């Protein structure tokens, strides 16, 4: 049994329950819960559990507040709470409005808090976090500086030897570089593995806890491999000690034995690195000896610095470190804190300029705004109905109540309201969290640790103080004599304050709505943009195992299948993963001319499979014998190189002559954040990825046939494939998440604002009942009355539109600038969202205004 009852409610129960009764009742609750999970499922059991806990909240069960009984304040507090409940009951509409508003507001804030907390915790779990730095490299190209993680293989050790502040270093070749998957095998069990190559101190530097093995020497030998606990269990079964066992690994067409020297615990979800196995870096250096040279960059370098190191200073000192080893090396290095890289992973001109942190900031602001809107409702409604409670205040003051006690009365109300809203927010979150996790691709959960509890207390406290302060100070300030003389009718200043707050609420809502509209249309623009190739109905998978060597024969078989339209092999993926080189010479190239080309390595039929269009010439084909001396360019490249009549001309790539056989039309092979850059396509027969275009209609059948064929070649291996269009959409995952989240918060904001408006309109129409009655008697039409009642608020919404539209225009312009291909900012986005919010506001108001205008004037006037 691993289903747990909703934690917040369990903790709530523990908190209020009498200590004598707590344990046995909790036992009963858990017993019932587990039974219901079995019988009716978790959701039902959760609901009933919550119901039970709430029904247990009664005087017999709640722990006594012994000790405070004797203090006089207790009586006052009780009195205040009683009064608060009475006022909730008396003003039911505004109570409901406040409650809905505050609880959705709080729920939004808490969700965002969970999300931010998770974002901030990424990579922070390493014990050495404070001293853990990564060496970054700036590639100083003449046109711009590009920052990369790859560094020199020898750099880590050299830094430890030569710079006293560097205590330890690890050089790591990360998962995914050097292409196709490794396959690990023990007995009959075969698994694909994401692996890293790391130098000896890796497990000492990072806190990837070892279940078995000693961090100091698990990577000491080339024959060693360290695997994850998950893989150890899959390969060797539960509770066995795999240390010393030999597994075989297939990599680079070779099968080699390795000895398990350690097992690390499964990596936490908030680790930005995820891998299943680690080899010694020596294995990598042996396979690629050129990486040892100081002019080549491949492994990532991580450093552990001594405490109290001046990092800025050190970062400057290592800037030209490599040029002391390799004369004339012009690329430079700098240090960045390892755990900062997740949030500050974007670089411009060789310095970090943010990254995900911008979303963290954006969402904090949005959550704050939503809560603020809810607080404003509370303020507005409590001050608006102040006149109805004036007598109460007057009587209290006449009886000798000090201002302080009146203030505390109203604060009690605000705190009580916040508390109830929190309970409801807890319920909302319990139900929303799964879908929120789906949207954000996280595994957030409510764990009532110290941090969460203090955050909740703080948020609650701030909300209550903020929402309660204005009404408390305002209501308690009246002069009792004036109250009884009926002199107070609400001054112009209060009216303005109230108007200002409403305008603020609507400005924020409109801002959110228009932003959502722009974001949504930009995303659909991206998804539907003509990329220069057809992205639908394409699947791709790694040519691993047996296919590593004999992929092309497999493709020949594939092509015979019905349902397979075409297939080819590819060294890249058109999803942003492509090589870069400037090593091309051509006739007429200027001395200083410098162009970086993207390098796409393709096999036969790949161009046709993707449906790339040719402008001129031909593609790689079997008919022409050896194609490795041929090359294709895209239009952009030809244009930049300035070659006339390119087909048939010779260029020199990496010292070898190649004949241009064709020009392809420009196509997008990276995210639309970037412009199309010059690229060439060169030919290799065997590649790492197999791309298949399948016929639409019976995709599933075709794919399962492909899987069967794959299984024949690779018995025992899982067939994992991706749909190209899905992976393409993933490039814009963060934009989609932003759109999703801002959509929901935009909706919440406008909902809360409208609720507030509804409350205010209800209040004014009630106060103007007599006026309406008289107007009606004198012959005013219902339509005119509705207009009269709505006009004031419509004006406010109008002002809000005027304020917010220019703001949203500039914000959205800024956001769109991060895309190289973007929609034009159409004025209708803003006019549209303005009209939309105005309509929503009018519709909301009409609930009340129509009712007030239709009322029989006799009802309002008969008492006079």
């Amino acid at each position, binding site marked *: 049994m691993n289903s747990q009852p909703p934690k917040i409610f369990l903790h709530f129960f523990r908190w209020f329950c009498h200590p004598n009764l707590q*344990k*046995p*009742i*909790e*036992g*009963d609750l858990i*017993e019932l819960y587990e039974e219901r999970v079995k019988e009716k499922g978790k959701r039902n059991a959760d609901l009933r559990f919550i119901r039970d806990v709430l*029904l247990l909240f009664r005087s017999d*069960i709640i722990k006594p507040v012994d000790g405070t009984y004797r203090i006089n304040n207790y009586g006052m507090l009780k009195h205040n709470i009683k009064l608060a409940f009475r006022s909730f009951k008396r003003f039911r509409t505004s109570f409901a409005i406040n409650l809905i508003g505050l609880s959705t507001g709080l729920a939004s804030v808490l969700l965002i808090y969970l999300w931010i907390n998770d974002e901030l915790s990424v990579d922070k779990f390493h014990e050495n976090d404070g001293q853990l730095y990564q060496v970054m490299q700036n590639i100083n190209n003449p046109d711009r500086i590009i920052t990369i993680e790859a560094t020199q293989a020898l750099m880590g050790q050299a830094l430890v030897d030569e710079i006293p502040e560097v205590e330890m270093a690890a050089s790591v070749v990360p998962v995914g570089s050097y292409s196709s998957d490794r396959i690990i095998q023990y007995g009959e069990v075969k698994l694909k593995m994401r692996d890293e190559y790391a130098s000896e101190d890796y497990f000492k530097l990072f806190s990837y806890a070892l279940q078995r093995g000693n961090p100091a020497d698990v990577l000491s030998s080339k024959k060693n491999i360290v695997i994850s606990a998950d893989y150890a269990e899959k390969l060797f079964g539960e509770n066995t000690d795999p240390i010393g066992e030999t597994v075989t690994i297939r990599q680079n067409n070779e099968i080699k034995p390795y000895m398990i020297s350690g097992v690390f615990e499964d990596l936490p979800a908030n680790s930005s690195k995820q891998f299943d196995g680690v080899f010694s870096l020596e294995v990598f250096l042996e396979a690629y000896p050129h990486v040892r040279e100081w002019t080549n960059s491949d492994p990532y370098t991580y450093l552990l610095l001594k405490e109290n190191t001046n990092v800025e200073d050190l970062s400057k000192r290592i800037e030209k470190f490599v040029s002391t080893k390799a004369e004339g090396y012009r690329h430079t290095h700098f240090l960045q804190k390892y755990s900062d890289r997740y949030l500050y992973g974007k670089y411009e001109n060789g310095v970090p300029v943010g990254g995900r942190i911008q979303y963290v900031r954006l969402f904090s602001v949005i959550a704050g705004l939503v809560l603020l809107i809810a607080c404003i409702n509370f303020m507005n409604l409590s001050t608006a109905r102040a006149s109805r409670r004036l007598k109460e205040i007057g009587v209290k003051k006449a009886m000798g109540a000090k201002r302080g006690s009146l203030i505390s009365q109203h604060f009690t109300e605000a705190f009580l309201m916040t508390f109830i809203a929190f309970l409801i927010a807890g319920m909302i979150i319990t139900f929303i969290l799964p879908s929120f996790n789906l949207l954000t691709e996280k595994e957030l959960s409510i764990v009532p640790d110290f941090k969460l509890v203090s955050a909740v207390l703080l948020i609650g406290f701030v909300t209550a103080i903020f929402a309660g302060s204005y009404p408390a100070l305002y209501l308690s300030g009246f002069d009792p004599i004036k109250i009884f003389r009926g002199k107070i009718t609400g001054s112009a200043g209060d009216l303005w304050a109230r108007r200002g707050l409403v305008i603020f609420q609507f400005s924020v809502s409109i801002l959110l709505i228009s932003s959502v509209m722009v974001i949504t249309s930009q995303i659909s623009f991206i998804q539907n943009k003509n990329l220069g190739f057809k992205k639908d109905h394409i699947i791709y998978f790694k040519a691993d195992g047996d296919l590593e060597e004999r992929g092309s024969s497999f493709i020949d078989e594939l092509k015979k299948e019905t349902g397979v339209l075409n297939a080819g092999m590819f060294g890249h993926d058109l999803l942003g993963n492509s090589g870069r080189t400037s090593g091309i010479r051509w006739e007429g190239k200027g001395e200083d001319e410098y162009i970086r080309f993207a390098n796409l390595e393709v096999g036969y039929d790949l161009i046709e499979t993707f449906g790339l269009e040719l402008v001129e010439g031909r593609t790689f084909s079997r008919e022409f014998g050896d194609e490795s001396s041929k090359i294709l360019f895209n239009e952009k490249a030809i244009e930049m190189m300035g070659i006339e009549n390119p087909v048939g001309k010779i260029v020199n790539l990496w010292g070898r002559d190649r004949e241009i056989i064709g020009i392809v039309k420009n196509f997008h092979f990276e995210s639309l954040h970037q412009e199309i850059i010059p690229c060439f396509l060169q030919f290799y027969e065997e590649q790492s990825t197999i791309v298949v275009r399948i016929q639409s209609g019976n995709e599933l059948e075709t794919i399962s046939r492909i899987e069967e064929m794959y299984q024949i070649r690779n018995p025992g291996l899982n067939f994992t494939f991706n749909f190209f269009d899905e992976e393409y959409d993933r490039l814009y995952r963060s934009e989609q998440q932003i759109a999703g989240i801002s959509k929901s918060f935009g909706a919440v904001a406008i909902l809360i604002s409208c609720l507030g408006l509804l409350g205010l309109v209800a209040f004014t129409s009630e106060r103007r009942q007599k006026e309406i009655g008289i107007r009606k008697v004198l012959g005013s039409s219902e339509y005119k009355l509705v207009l009269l009642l709505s006009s004031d608020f419509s004006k406010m919404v109008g002002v809000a539109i005027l304020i917010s539209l220019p703001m949203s225009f500039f914000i959205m312009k800024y956001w769109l600038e991060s895309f190289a291909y973007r929609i034009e900012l159409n004025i209708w986005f803003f006019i549209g969202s303005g009209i939309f919010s105005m309509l929503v506001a009018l519709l909301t108001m009409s609930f009340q205004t129509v009712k007030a205008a239709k009322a029989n004037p006799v009802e309002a006037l008969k008492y006079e």
Partner: protein
Amino acid sequence: MKKYQLGEFEEVVMLTVGILYENAYGVSIKKEIETRLNRKVSVGALQSALKRLEDKEYLRSHDSDATPERAGRPKRFYKITALGKKAMQYTKETRNAMWDSIPDVALDVKFVTN
């Protein structure tokens, strides 16, 4: 002035505790009432009734040792005290006496069907 105060639901709880004898704890009492009387009993209502009865000393309780199946929480078993037994008997006797005092005529009601 009532000698023994026992509400309707409290009486039901007392009777159930009696029926279950050695095995009367929260969940079992709840289920027994629900099956016998075909009415829903919330954990809250039951626990507060048990607490009141214990305060009136009609019931006494002891905790079992912690068992793993309830996440290590003990069961609290209830037993009827001598005072509790008197209260139950008193209620029963007074009811019976009242039943007996109803003249037969008053109960001679015929069902009328249309």
